[in-house]
């Protein structure tokens, strides 16, 4: 990972800039607008999520056909496919309660800070606490499992 292309981080940064500008322009950085969608008062969010998914979907479909590997990493072009298990449903449901209560998700929270929303630090602090809690718990149960099998 240390011998990455010198343009690797600059390109990630530029991608992030465009991504964040879009979250600001679309008002997804405003929890009120997300809550208005969830309460069926403004369905605009659908255009953001599916608009973005269509644009990225074109790249996911086209790139593997025209090149084998990405220029800055040498990684193969692959689609984002994650294995399905019960965690997708349990985690998705917990995320849904949090998103419905707060109106904010991780990417939009970073962008919200950028548009001047200092109050969103409450949400960011909460997200780190939540990520830490699940990581602490899962790291421990993992160690316990390996310790148990190691003892056999």
């Amino acid at each position, binding site marked *: 990972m240390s011998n990455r292309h010198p343009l690797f981080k600059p390109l*990630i940064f530029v*991608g*992030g*800039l*465009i*991504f*964040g500008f*879009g979250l*600001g*322009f*679309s*008002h997804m*950085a405003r*929890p009120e*607008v997300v*809550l208005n969608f*969830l309460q*069926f008062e*403004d*369905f605009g969010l659908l255009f*953001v999520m*599916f608009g*973005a*998914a269509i*644009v*990225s979907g074109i*790249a*996911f479909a086209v790139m593997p056909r025209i090149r084998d590997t990405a220029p*800055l990493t040498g990684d193969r*072009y*692959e689609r984002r*496919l*994650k294995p*399905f298990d019960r965690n*997708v*449903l349990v*985690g*998705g*449901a*917990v*995320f*849904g309660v949090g*998103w*419905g*209560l*707060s*109106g904010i998700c991780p990417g939009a929270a970073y962008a919200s800070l*950028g548009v001047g929303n200092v*109050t*969103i630090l*409450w*949400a960011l602090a*909460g*997200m780190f*606490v*939540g*990520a830490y809690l*699940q*990581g602490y718990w899962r790291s421990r149960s*993992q160690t316990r499992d390996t310790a148990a099998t190691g003892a056999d």
Partner: protein
Amino acid sequence: METELLVLQLAAELFPNGISRYAIGGLLVGLGAVVIYVGTGIPAGASTFLESTLSYVSDQSRFQQYVSSRDWRVVFTLGIVLGAAAFAATVQSGVITTSLYEPGTTGQLYEIAGVTLWTTDVQPWRLFFGGILVGIGTRIGKGCTSGHGVCGVGSASKTSIVGVATFLTVAIGTAQVVAALGVSP
């Protein structure tokens, strides 16, 4: 003539702020993900940053697995913050004006050094406790609105489509219940 009027009326009810700011913003979000994917082959997601950044301060194995990607994830997040700040300094501040941008009336605007900034009216306890659940749920559920919602759906991944359907449905139910209980904003 009458159906035309009906369509316009329906559109105004479903989309009281128009669709252009949403559609253009969505295209830009997608474009940001495409730039990163084309250059690096990485389908970017925003929530892994929470765990990868914790690896700087915690030895837990769950966070240490992200050590190799934690540096660029900080760069990605910094880009998102500054990209949104660039939006605030230009379009939100009225330096760039376009009929495609509907400013809306949510939250509070304030000014620092000629830049129009925005802050939310949503109560801190909602943000904090909602944030905790977002932190737990996105990490257990293998992704958030960008990883599952944009890159996963864009990849036609069944896992992501089921994930999105799950969190969208639960979020709608939660927001409706919270509103029905009279919590606002």
